């Protein structure tokens, strides 16, 4: 297993390096200038030139690349062009918010998806199965930003059940008790997490249903039934355990979906996470922030997929990690 692990870690580092290099090239070659006034104010060319010098964008691209890698090797992500603060600090502020959102969305995604998949498999080809197939397909097909906008409009602006954006209520949060603060955070988390979670759950449910139906056709399930084991026990104890294995590997794949979905959902809900940070940075041509967030997301996806492989291997004795 150790050689496999070392190979995967090496491959992961190579992938991160390649992604950072490609992103560096892409953001610098894309049209646009980081220091132009964005709100239609007159351009002061001398001031712009001076800013280019201060932030080093007046140097040749290869030199900027080497400097960036050298800084990266020292653990420095640079200073934001648009916000004039260390990128590491900005990511440090945004990361917990994205982790909270992604983890909650993941919980909704898998809890709901698995439950629906199991329910459907137990009632395969019945009316409820057909209805849920259509419903899950509907949610799976929805663009996350559109679902977010609809939830925001209905439950935020019209019904006032949930806040329409942000992470806490800036007026009252400090005066709330601990439980009040917790509830305030949950209220703000609800809509963005549901948006991401519902779309993901649509896919997970379909995946879970298919895996469970396949497992239910296996010989050991037939044996269990022949021995007179109750159908619910057959479903949960025998078939589901087997059918959960492919869903675990889906966990690793869910991470990129959640992180890319977060870009849109965080923007819709003004959720101050990595996605919104990256989206704002792209618009502002804030190269260090774009690179910093890309680096982090890429590393998270690589590590997530590695962990998913390890968990799958641990859960399934048929898998050996030596190949």
């Amino acid at each position, binding site marked *: 297993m150790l050689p496999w692990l070392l190979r995967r870690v090496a491959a992961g580092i190579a992938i991160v390096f390649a992604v950072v290099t490609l992103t560096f090239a892409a953001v610098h070659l894309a049209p646009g*200038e980081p220091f132009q006034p964005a709100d239609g104010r007159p351009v002061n060319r001398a001031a712009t030139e001076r800013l280019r010098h*201060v932030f080093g964008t007046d140097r040749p691209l290869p030199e900027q690349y080497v400097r960036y890698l050298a800084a990266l090797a020292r653990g420095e992500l640079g200073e934001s062009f648009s*916000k*004039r603060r260390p990128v590491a600090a900005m990511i440090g502020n945004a990361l917990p918010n994205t982790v909270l959102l992604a983890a909650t969305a993941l919980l909704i995604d898998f809890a709901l998806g698995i439950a629906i998949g199991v329910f459907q498999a137990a009632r395969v080809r019945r009316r409820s199965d057909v209805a849920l197939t259509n419903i899950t397909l509907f949610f799976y097909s929805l663009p996350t930003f559109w679902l977010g906008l609809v939830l925001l409009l209905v439950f935020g602006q019209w019904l006032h059940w949930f806040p329409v954006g*942000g*992470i806490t209520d*800036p007026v009252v949060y400090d*005066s709330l008790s601990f439980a*009040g603060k917790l509830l305030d955070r949950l209220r703000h988390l609800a809509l963005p997490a549901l948006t991401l979670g519902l779309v993901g759950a649509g896919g997970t449910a379909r995946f879970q249903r298919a895996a469970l139906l396949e497992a239910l056709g296996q010989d050991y399930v037939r044996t269990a039934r022949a021995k007179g084991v109750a159908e619910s026990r057959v479903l949960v104890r025998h078939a589901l355990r087997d059918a959960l294995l492919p869903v675990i590997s889906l966990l690793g794949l869910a991470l990129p979906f959640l992180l890319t979905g977060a870009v849109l959902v965080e923007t819709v809900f003004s959720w101050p996470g990595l996605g*919104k940070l990256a989206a704002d940075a792209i618009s502002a041509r804030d190269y260090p922030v774009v690179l910093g967030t890309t680096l982090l997301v890429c590393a998270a996806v690589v590590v997530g997929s590695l962990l998913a492989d390890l968990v799958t291997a641990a859960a399934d004795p048929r898998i050996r990690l030596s190949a």
Partner: protein
Amino acid sequence: MTTQPRFPHAATALLLAVLAAASCTRRGGCTGEYCGTLVIAGTSDVTTLLPPVSDAAIDRDVFDQILLRLADLAPGGSTIGDAGFVPQLANRWEWTDPLTLVFHLDPRARWHDGPSVTAADVAFTFAAYTDTAVNSPDRNTLGHIASVSALDSLTAVFHFRDRYPEMFYDAVFHMRILPAHVLGSVPPATWQTAEFGRAPVGDGPFRFVRWTPGQTLELAADSTFFLGRPHLRRLIWRFASDLNTAITQVAAGEADAVEVLITPTNIKRAQDAGHLTLYPYSGSTYTFLRFNLRANGDSAHPHTIFADPDVRRALVLATDRPRMLQSVFAGHAKIPPGPMPQLWAWLWVPQLTVPPFDTAQASRLLSGRGWRDTNGDGVRDRNGKKLSFHLSVPSTSAVRQQYAQLLQEQLKAVGVEVLIDQMETATQQERLHSGAFDTALESWNTDPSPTSSVPGNWGRGGGSNFGHYASATFDRQIAVATSATSPDSVTAAWIAAFGTLAQDAPGIMLFSVDMIAAVDSRVAGVRIRPDSWWALLWTWRIPPDKLNERDRVGG
């Protein structure tokens, strides 16, 4: 036998406990005149809170609350002379000779950390704004001022290099006085990223409390403010992703104010919310289509279409601007007769008129210049080249996209093909700077004076004259406008310059939006300054009988 699952009950009990505990908030008890909390829905985050290194509108909104000028523009005040200004840090001033301006500071003015505001702070501020290492965007505009010195602790003396109509405006408007005792030890080269920009010390009606990047910025009233205690106790900016989200926050009651609505849809949303009052004010922006008079991507050669002024004039005549205005804004905007926002009300004079919509005259002009539809495809051509061009429009502006489509449709009627290129704002900026465009839909946000933007935008060698318009007459008129000494001659020179521009048609002036702010109806005394929306926030109030629970929190 079946057993009842215990978990759902436990979960329900826990949820009820949390809800019960959550309802036990520590409620504040603030009552009276000075309890209001105003939440402003901002459309972008703040960049830095150190004025010399920022020119972003959102930063300016916060500066207006925490850092004072020597004097400020009165609502509707003229930038010519000093009559249009009201005291701030300086309680009076006088001209000791035509080139020397003396300010007397108000002895009551204090920095929020204790020390008095002194003339040394004023001299330090001028040195900072003009320091090449600090690299202030305002450095060039201060070029007429030779020096600023402190005569004594409360007297600052400005020496000018020459006489011109906006001497006073330049002396006071571009600089927020900075605390020398805090910033004096910060190396100028590091001001772009200085800590002060994240936690400033001010002297204004509100003091800085905290800034959570990407989320909120909070200020608290300085109850000892020397010009009068602000009635609002807390100011909070909530940063939304865009204008739509900001309006949603205000409509949902999670924010109290948004400075613009722009489209009829947004205005209706605010009206339908029921708890908002709308406040119209003159806008500081204008939008136009710019012609590139040089070849697309090759500024050494003239543009095959737009180098010809008759073709440009024809396109102006072929554009039905009143109809476009009605379609997009339902009347909530005006057509500027020159490159000017509604803010410059003194220039909206009868002498400057918008050319009429006249497709017959447009067709005659185009035909006269040899552009005819020789092959019957509906598009005019000359020497085998179609009368066709690209129009770049930022994808972030729905309004400008609508205008692009309307322009395309209207110009098609006179045999002109318009190819719309939607692109990101940064990409459009890049194209403008490199000259790689035929035409572009641009919006400009201006200062109270035309001096800082018109020469740069339309004058020869101007940093933002992307279309390479060049007219000796126009430049001469601008020079008169920026150097004449009497207000009447200044106005006459600007009118003449805009008349020249209308004749040469380097662009089509399309609209200047009626700015409308939406503010929660419990707020009283709302006054909005067109050039700086929130500059008068410290005079707003929420009457005691209108205070809600959120206003009282933390009191």
